[in-house]
């Protein structure tokens, strides 16, 4: 019962954060809304017994990536008058909702066709660092290595893109 209340609270917070993200005019406000969503999602992960992902969601996502985004927003020093004038954005959002409604209802239909299963009691180790680590390094070793290369490439790419360039001829 307590878990249901928590789920309701977190999901409402997450949706509100998402709505805030797409409606606020200033990116800083949007970013803060996104942080709310991220933290709520972390709570949901905890409800789903994903301990490691819960921790990483808080540390890496809500912590590192979001602070990077906020740092960039501050670095660019965006003033309100520099922002694009988006007078019709609510109209656009409304149009978007209309267009997306079929998608949503289609997905909903599919989800409701999944047989309802009661959550079973899990063993102690589910979602812990050791267990996820074992799966990661036993069954998912190659994708893991590929992702590490991807990160390296992204690092180099970011340096090349944003770094100071020498004046080309």
């Amino acid at each position: 019962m307590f878990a249901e209340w928590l789920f309701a609270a977190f999901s409402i917070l997450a949706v509100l954060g998402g709505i805030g993200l797409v409606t606020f005019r200033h990116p800083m406000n949007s970013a803060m809304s996104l942080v709310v969503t991220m933290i709520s999602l972390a709570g949901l992960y905890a409800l789903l017994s994903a301990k490691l992902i819960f921790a990483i969601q808080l540390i890496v996502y809500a912590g590192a990536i979001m602070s990077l985004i906020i740092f960039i927003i501050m670095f660019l020093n965006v003033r309100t008058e520099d922002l694009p004038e988006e007078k019709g954005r609510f109209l656009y959002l409304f149009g978007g909702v209309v267009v997306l409604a079929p998608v949503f209802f289609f997905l909903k239909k599919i989800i409701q066709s999944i047989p309802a299963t009661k959550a079973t009691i899990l063993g102690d180790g589910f979602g812990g660092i050791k267990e996820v680590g074992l799966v990661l390094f036993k069954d998912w070793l190659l994708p893991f290595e590929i992702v590490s290369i991807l990160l390296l490439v992204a690092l180099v790419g970011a340096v090349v893109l944003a770094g100071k360039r020498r004046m080309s001829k």
Partner: protein
Amino acid sequence: MEHTVSYLGLIPLFPLLGALILGVMHISTCTGKPFSEKLYGVLGCIGPVISFIYALIVYFQLKGMPADSRFLIHDAFTWFSVGDLHITMGFLADPLSSLMLVFVTFIGSLIHIYSVGYMSGDENFGKFFSYMNLFLGSMLILVLGSGPVVMFVGWEGVGLCSYLLISFYCKDTDNVLAGNKAFIVNRIGDLGFVLGMAFLFWAIGASGFDYLSLRENSHLLTPGIGLVVCLLLFVGACGKSAQIPLYVWLPDAMAGPTPVSALIHAATMVTAGVYMVARFSFIYAHVPVAGAVVAWIGILTALLAAIFGMFQHDIKKILAYSTVSQLGYMFAGVGVAAYSAGIFHVFTHAFFKALLFLGAGSVIYALHHQQNIWKMGGLKEKMPKTYWSMLIGALALAGFPPFSGFFSKDEILFSALASGHTGIWFIGVAVAGITAYYTFRLIFVVFHGQPRDKKAFDHAEDAPAVMTIPLMVLAFGALCAGFLNLPGIFGGNLNVSHWLAPSLVEHHPHTSLTVELLAMALTIAIIVTGIVIAYKKFASGAEEPEYTGFAKFAYNKFYVDELYNTVFVQPYKAIGSVIWKSLEPNVTDIHVKVSSWLYRKAGTGFKIFQVGYVRVYAVYMVIGLSIISLLLSQSLN
């Protein structure tokens, strides 16, 4: 298989490889600094020389075999198979092709060496040698091909190279036009050749389309089809070997550099037609009518070209018409079924014509590209080596005993007489006299008398050794080649004819010795008369005459070029321009225009969707997603 030798395919390969290497070298340096002429020269000559060595090896290997089974084959690979038709890239060396092989590579090599001197200083030195090697390689494929299809590869190859080389000095429009003319006239002949080949295949080609199988099956050929095949093949030969009515390209082919003329006229290209007729002797022998047509066209060509030759003033044109005339003799020979005589004349002609052309080239080179004989004169003192070698060539061309031309020409004339073609023999003897006249007209005007152009005369001198040595070698050949086929009455035993016999289908007619001697004496008398008349008229320095009447008519080559121009070329051009201007844009191109219009309109229509804003593209994507969702959720229930 004792008859299979794998090096046969290498013979054409060396010049072709040389052509490739030289061509790549030339192209890669055409904007920068070119390679040295020495390098080009060595690379250009090495291929022909190696081919010559291999040709000798082939010859000696054939010589070591029993006379009735003298042939070597090499099937390099299967070129293509269509239904019953399996064409291999095969090479065949038998006595006929080995004879051709030896003298083609020998004279080709000499001409290449001579060219190193002649072409020095030309900016397209590398290109020239590349083309020359390609030319020789194509000719070797033509000669060595084991069947008509492989021969056709070489046939087209020499056609292409003649075009490239005739229009070698391509900055001058006239040269390019001459190249075009050669190419187009050759195409007409090639059409005949292709049709003849197709008929031959249709008739007897099903069980193997190479010479050996065709020869075995030749008795299956009905006379009607045989005649058609022979005449169509002869059309091809007419184009390549410059016979009436397709001879017009050869005199114009003089636009190319002189070694090219020598190569075209002596070793390659024009001899291809005679070779082809001799190669198909097993068909021609069955169809005497076709042979008679060939012989008459040949001898008429000989007469016509000899008449033209009497009145020309360009040294190379005189030689060109003499070539056409001699080719006429050869066709007369193969036409009266004296194939070995015809081929022997090809052989001796190769020597003395190459000699004359290279000599003429030396004269032109010495006089800084002066080709008008009425601007020359008295060069005997200045260019003794050239004079003596050209004199030998002229005597051989005129058919004066004991030079090579005498034996081969006499052999042809005698065969014509012996096989009952008295008319051909009579014209042939007359042409021999005319030939002697115009040949010595050339010699006397150029080398005797007083110099007509003092300034050029003073600077004239013999060419460097790289040019004169080939001349002397060829002079020796022109002098002695005739003894290879000494007829019985001079104590010989017709070595070349016996050598060629296994490749050919011919019989040697016999007449009484008296007739033979009388005919020979008459020929010699006519030739001497021709030389004497030329001596009287030109030896002491005549000036260029004003031609009137018949002479003017002959000087202008009977206006044949103009006639062809009005009858064929202009109407063809007119039809072409009508099609180009009205038919093509309004009828044949209409669907192209409509579809392009449609695409253009559709393009402008769809352009409005390309707004350029990223999010709008995302909207398109979402709309698509939405539609798919709608459709799928319909079907989900």
